[in-house]
Every structure is written in C-alpha cells, then in structure tokens.
C-alpha cells in the first residue's frame, strides 16, 4: 500500500487551524505529529502549562516557545497539602521569573500552584511585564503584602489577582491603597486567604467602586458583615462573591440592608466565605439562591436544619462544598432538590474526634449518587462505609470522573461485614469507565489494586494511604493503569520489587510520591542510576540515607520525570539519586 501524498497547507493556514486548538493535551499532540507541525506549533503556542516545574528548565521552555503570553507552573507534590513535604523542599518560582523577565516583556498571565514566591519575584513581575494581566497564586507561600503592594501600584492592566489558599506574610494593611485612583481594570480579586488586618476597608470600597468590570470578589474573614452591604452596593454586577465573617448581632436594619443589596445582585451565581455564620442572617441570601450554581459553605458551621433550608432554595446548584453538618438528611434533600449537581465536597467538622459528632454516613453519598444524575466529582469524608454502599453508588453513578472517599480512621473495614472494602472500590473502577481521579481509604488489600489495574484504564491520578499487603498491589497499579500520571502513596507496605520491575512506567508518568513505605535506599540508588530521565529524590529528615544500612527504607521518595536533569536548589534533607550514586561493585 503506497503512502498517499501529504496534503500541503501553507503555514499560516495551519497556524490558523491551531488557533482553534487550545487544550495543552491537544497542542502537545499536534506538536508531536511531524517536524513541520512541531515548528509551526511552537511559534504559535500562547499558553504553556508545566505540570512539574522541575521537569523542564525555564530556558528550555523559552527556547521552544518564543511567543507565549501565559504560563502555568506547578511546584510541590499534592501531598504538600497534608504537610508531608517538609518546608524548604523547593518549588521556587524565582528562576522562572528571572528568565522570563528578560525574554518575554509581553507576558500577560502567570498562574502558579504550590510554589514559593518571594516579594522580589513579585517586584520583578511588576517591573518587567508592561501588559501584565493575570496573577493567580494557588496554595503558594513566601511573599508578603509588600510584594502585593508593588503589583498593585505598577500593573496598570491587571485584570485578575487571585491568592487562593496562600500563606501571606501580613506586614501592612494598606497594600490595597497602592492601586492608583486611575486604575479601573480589575475583573477578579480573591483575597480570602489574608489574615485579619490585612485589608483596608475604605481602600477596598473605593477600588470596588471604580472597577465597574469587577465580576469576582472574594473577601477575607476580616471583612465584617456590616461592611458587605456597602461593598455590594458598589458592585451589583458581581457574578462571584465571597463574604467575610458572616456574623453580627442580629439587627433588623442590618438584615434588611443586606437582603436588599443581595436582591440587587442579579448576576450572582457563586457564593463563598461564610465564616462564623449566624443562621439568622442566612435568609438574606435567599433572593439570589435560585440562580446560584456554586456554593462554598466549607467554613459555615451551621447545623443541618439551616443547611437544608438553604439548599432547598438552590435548585440550580452545580457545585456544593459543605461541612458534614449537613448530615445524611441534608444530603437527601440535596439529592431531591438539586438535579444539576455536578460536584460535591463534604468536609469533616471534627476530623480528630474519636467519635462521630454528626449523623453523616455512607447513606448520604448513596442518596446523592442516586438523586443527582449529573454528579461527576465527589470528595467525601465520613466515618463508615460498606461494600454494598459502594457498589450501589457505582451502579447509580457510572459517570463519576473524580471519586475521592476519605474514611477518617485508617483501615476501617466494611462496617456491615467487617471485610476489606476491595469489592466496593472495585465496583467503582469497574462501572465508572471514565474515572480520572481516585482516592482510596478504609481497609484494603492487594485485591483492590488488582481491580484498579484491571479496570481503571482512564485513571490519571491515584491517592493511596494505609492500604495493600505487598508489592503486588503496587505492581498491579503500575502495570495496569495505562493513563496514570500521578501516583501518591503513604504508609503502605510497598517495597522495591514492584517499583524496579515497573521502572519504565515511571517515565510515562508525571510523578510518584511514596512516604512511609518500604522502598530501600539501595533501590532508590539503582533507579536513579538506571533511569537518567527520572529524578529520584530521597527526602529524609533523619539525616543522610547512607548513614543507615542500604536496605533501610527511605522516609520519603519523590520520583518525577525530567529533561532538566537533577536540580540544584535542594535543601540538606533532599538527595537526588543519579548515575554517580550507583553501587560500587
């Protein structure tokens, strides 16, 4: 069969076709088709996504993509959120900012997740990028309000400043005042992470007042309830709003003021905040509830009856984050009222308590899985589960794409049969064919991993803790999950065998995290020696791993593929295994 002649396009035409292809995955595929497409694509890529900042060097990115306007970088592994990554591990953004400052004066957008950002970097951003528009810092740290002040003062075209879940050093409340009086382009502002006294209310009100394009405003806890009315009056066009503390002495005038101002917000679709909620003030938001698609009540310590009332007013809800105060009864109401629900997260109000403080069980999740046909994404904390419930959930809702179940006490068995929950999770992976993300919990043997390896073919991210019996478990996952990109494991009896037998698989993934497992230092060295395109990092605060016998397990292991080679910004408790660390025979 002779190969047909390639159809030749002029480059501009191809570039025009590519302009309609925006997802990173598709752009990457396009660039891998052939030499000419690679060349055309690299010149017209405008958005770059780097899932692991150590997988590639800034210089390489700049060399390959000379004309991007937007970059997204991720630093620390996900388990950093649970304090498993010691401070100082890395994820510094400064080398990136420094390289880009010289190369891209026209850079417009920077989005960072779990990275360390300094005030110097913020200043460099403000100084170097004249058309800078978007700064999103998610779960970042290392900077202060001084850095924010420089951004505010210098970035005339700033549209978005989002500091979700960051740890910011509060040095001055007045950074907001640094937005010049002439500045009006703000569209999105999220300062919900700032501590108290980090915001000047009058500056905020004036800013909100003159930025008539403001669509998203998420305030921090320090903003009192009586200030909200004033702020909202200035911004009735808001689409997303996060309150500050939602508590005050119950006063009819304050209440009616608030209710009135909420009614005038005709575009409001998303609400959040609600720290310290006083239930009496909740009905003030009822006027907007019917249009709400997203509601974040994860700080709202209100009880089930109030939650039920609230939720029943929101028939168009697509996304709900709530504490387990909602209880099974509340979730049943949710299931019958909110048929458009796509994402549900139920957080524990008292995770460290020995006994359950609320009546939230597997039944709530079963109810929602039955009643909400569009439900795709779930994060659910509870204290008991059964295989029967999981099988029912899986059968009810085969369209799950994200299923994260957290049974609070590790190794909790099926409360009805006292068996492991292997079969239940097996049902989840078998029925939910498009499952991309899964978190396991409860009592689990190697069996569950066999199911996962057999059925979870689209799984991209798996989180495992206190599960499995042997290397076989890990082997099932590494050999069976074709789409696996991120695997994070803690406190499981997985050792060297599965890891070494599946070493090649690790190059097809973004990263593997293993802490408190049974991988020996010797195996780490071997892996580092044999796989030059993997960075094998041993993280051990007990001291150098070679001060212990080689067969001793390392404390934490972080393996990620990289074309940038080993990094040089490691703290004293991180060692990268490389070719030189192989055994001397």
């Amino acid at each position, binding site marked *: 069969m002779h190969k047909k002649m*390639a159809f030749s396009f002029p480059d501009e035409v191809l570039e*025009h076709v590519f302009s309609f292809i925006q997802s990173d995955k598709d752009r990457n595929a396009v660039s891998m088709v052939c030499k000419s497409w690679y060349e055309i694509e690299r010149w017209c890529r405008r958005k770059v996504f780097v899932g692991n900042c150590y997988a590639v060097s800034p210089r390489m990115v700049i060399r390959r993509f000379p004309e991007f306007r937007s970059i997204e970088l991720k630093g620390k592994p996900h388990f950093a959120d649970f304090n498993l990554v010691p401070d100082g591990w890395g994820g510094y953004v400064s080398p990136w900012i420094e390289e880009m400052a010289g190369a891209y004066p026209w850079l417009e957008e920077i989005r960072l997740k779990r990275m360390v950002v300094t005030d110097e970097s913020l200043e460099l951003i403000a100084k170097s990028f004249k058309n800078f528009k978007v700064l999103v810092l998610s779960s970042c740290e290392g900077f202060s309000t001084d850095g924010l002040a420089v951004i505010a003062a210098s970035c005339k075209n700033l549209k978005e400043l989002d500091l979700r879940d960051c740890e910011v050093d509060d040095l001055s409340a007045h950074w907001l005042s640094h937005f010049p009086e002439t500045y009006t382009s703000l569209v999105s502002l999220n300062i919900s992470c700032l501590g108290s006294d980090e915001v000047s209310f009058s500056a905020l009100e004036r800013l909100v007042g003159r930025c008539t394009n403001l669509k998203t405003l998420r305030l921090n806890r320090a903003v009192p309830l009586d200030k909200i009315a004033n702020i909202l009056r200035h911004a009735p066009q808001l689409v997303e709003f996060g309150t500050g503390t939602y508590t005050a002495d119950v006063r009819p005038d304050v209440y009616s003021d608030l209710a009135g101002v909420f009614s005038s917000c005709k575009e409001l679709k998303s609400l959040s905040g609600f720290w310290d909620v006083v239930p009496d003030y909740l009905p003030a938001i009822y006027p907007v509830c019917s249009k709400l698609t997203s509601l974040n009540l994860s700080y709202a310590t209100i009880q089930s009856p109030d939650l039920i009332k609230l939720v029943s007013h929101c028939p168009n809800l697509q996304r709900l984050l709530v504490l387990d105060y909602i209880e099974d009864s509340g979730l049943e109401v949710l299931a019958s009222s909110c048929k458009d629900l796509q994402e549900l997260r139920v957080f524990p109000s008292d995770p*460290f308590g020995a006994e359950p403080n609320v009546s939230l069980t597997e039944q709530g999740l079963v109810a929602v899985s039955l009643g909400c046909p569009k439900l795709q994404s779930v994060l659910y904390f509870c204290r008991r589960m059964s295989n029967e419930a999981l099988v029912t959930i899986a059968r009810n809702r085969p369209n799950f794409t994200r299923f994260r179940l957290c049974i609070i006490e590790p190794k909790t068995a099926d409360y009805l049969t006292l068996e492991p929950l292997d079969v239940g999770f097996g049902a989840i992976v078998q029925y939910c064919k498009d499952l991309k993300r899964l978190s396991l919990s409860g009592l689990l043997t190697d069996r569950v991993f066999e199911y996962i390896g057999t059925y979870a073919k689209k799984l991209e991210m798996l*989180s495992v*803790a206190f599960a499995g019996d*042997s*290397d076989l478990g890990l082997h099932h996952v590494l050999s069976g999950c074709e789409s696996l990109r991120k695997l994070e494991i803690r406190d499981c009896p997985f050792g060297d065998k599965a890891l070494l*037998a599946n070493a090649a698989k690790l*190059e097809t993934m973004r990263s593997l995290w293993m802490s408190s497992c049974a991988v020996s230092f010797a195996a780490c060295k071997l892996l580092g020696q044999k796989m030059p395109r993997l960075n094998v990092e041993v993280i051990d605060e007990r001291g150098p791993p070679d001060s212990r016998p080689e*067969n001793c397990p390392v404390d934490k292991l972080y393996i990620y593929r990289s074309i940038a080679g080993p990094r040089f910004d490691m703290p004293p408790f991180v060692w990268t295994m490389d070719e030189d660390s192989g055994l001397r025979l």
Partner: protein
Amino acid sequence: MMKSYIWLQTADGSIQQVEQEVAMFCPMICHEVIQKGMGSSKNYAISLPQRVNPAMLSLILDYCRFHQVPGRSNKERKSFDEKFIRMDTKRLCELTSAADSLQLKPLVDLTSRALARIIEGKSPEEIREIFHLPDDLTEEEKLEPLKNTTDDPRIRLLNRLYAKKRKELKERQKLKNIEVEEERVDDRSVDDLLSFINGDNGDSKGIKNSKSKKKNRRRKDQQKNASANEAIKNHNKEPNGLNQVCHSAEVGQKVRPGVGATSNLHDVEDDIFDNKNELDDVDIDDEIDPALKEKIDREVEDFARRLNSDWPERMQEILSFGHERKPVHFSLNGNGS
C-alpha cells in the same frame, strides 16, 4: 434585465462565468475586478490561484451564493454552515487551502474550526494517519515520554506465565525432579529481572527472601492521631498527624508464611505472581469476568509454547536495563548483613 457575470479561470485552464454578486463575495476576486479591471470577458478571465481547482471553486461558489444574500438570519446561516461543512477530511483540507487563497475569511474560519475539531482528542499517530504526514521527529525532539512498555498485552501474559512457571517449579522441586536443573535457569533469570535486589542466587533454592514483609498490616501501635488520606485543605492545612518513625524492627525481619497467617502472606518472591495465580482459582466474588480469565489462561498456554526460545531477549527489551544481566550483588538479606 442583463445579469452581470465574472469570468474565472482555474489552474487546469477551464473557464467559467459566475454571477457577479456571488463571485465578488471573495475578496481576491473583488480585488481583481476593481483594482485590475479583470474578469469582464472570457479573454480577461481572472486566473484563480492554483489551490482552487474546479471542484473547490464549485463548493466555494455554493458558499458564496448562499451567504451573499443579505436577508438571511444568523440561525439560517449557521444551519447552512453546519451542513456545508460535512465532507471528508481531504476535501476539507483542500477547501481550507482554497478559501485561504481567495481570502474568504469566514469560510477559512469555518473550515479551520472543522479541522481543529477533527484534530482534537487524537494522538499524534492518528493525526499523522488522517493527514498523511511523515513521522520524522527524532527522539530528542520529542519531549514525550517513552512509550509505556507494559502496554504490550504480551507482557501481561508473560506475567501470568511466570506465575505458572514458578508454581510448576516449586512442585517439581518438591519431587526433586532432575529436570529442575533446566527450570532453574529460567527461574534465576526471572529473579534477576524482577527482583534486582536479591542476593547471589548460586544455590539450588535460589530464591531468597530478600525483602521484608510486614507481618501484620493491622498495626495496632498506630498512632491515634493518624487521620485520613485527605485532610481538609481549606482549614489552614491542619497537620495530618501521622509522622511514622521507621519501624526498623519490622523492616529487618524475614517473613515465612505461617500456618495461621492471613491469605495474603507469601514468600516475597511469590508475591508478585503467585498471588495473582491463586486469586484466579478462588472465585470469591464476581467482579472479575470469568470468561476473560479463561481466555487469558488459554493465551498463556499458547504463549508459553511460542515464548520458550526467545524470552531472555524479550525480557531485556521489556526492561531496557542495558545488556548486562548478571545478578546485581546487593546484600539485602534482611538481617542487615
């Protein structure tokens, strides 16, 4: 009433006349008529770019004929476009190119979007196939990861084969059969490849218990403040509690399958494969398709026959760990020797 026509000539030499209002919808033709006074007669036919062959011209004129009518609603236009764009990829490519050469932007956008939709969600191989493009990128140029070698279904079968082989070996060794000699060669290689950290396998039993296995998963000494896998991110990243000290005592122990032990205790080297085999025999629940199991068993037998001669090379290929296959001399006999 006289209708005005524009004369157009395609690269193959053929000339046709087209209603003026239709032809003038194309900026390139419009330019030729207005700026250069061309197209008014057969002798002065406008030469269209090479990328516009008669078939493409016909399509483009259909498009122009519809859209140049002023009164149409957006809905009508959209509906026409959706039907118009339905054609095979080759024609779509030609049309995009042709429309581009005539500077007919709305049609270029329409066809480009359609091509983008064809490309989206596909792998590089698939895209290459559709557009007949060469696979000419080098490994260095590809910043893509290595192909996942365990994708190969033969490797999965291989795993099952090893499980069976091991079982067979154990049984034969029990009978102290002379043929163990030959089997042992296989066995040792399996060891090499699958447990890099085994000790020297010179002796008959060969298979050492190199890696510890924690005897009891249900560690009762677990600290009580160990919380679940996923803590609450929103709540200021509360400490997750469990800072496990390396229980070196457990790590250093050899484990032998005990009589009363739970079913998931095995000799280390059996773990990866025998366990799998054993699971096949026990039909605890119906979550694994029995037909699939049977199919795999048959394939394993088949595969075993085909595999015998070349499997050492095959394993090498699979693991790409260089050409040395000497057992690596780790001393990890658990007892810290």
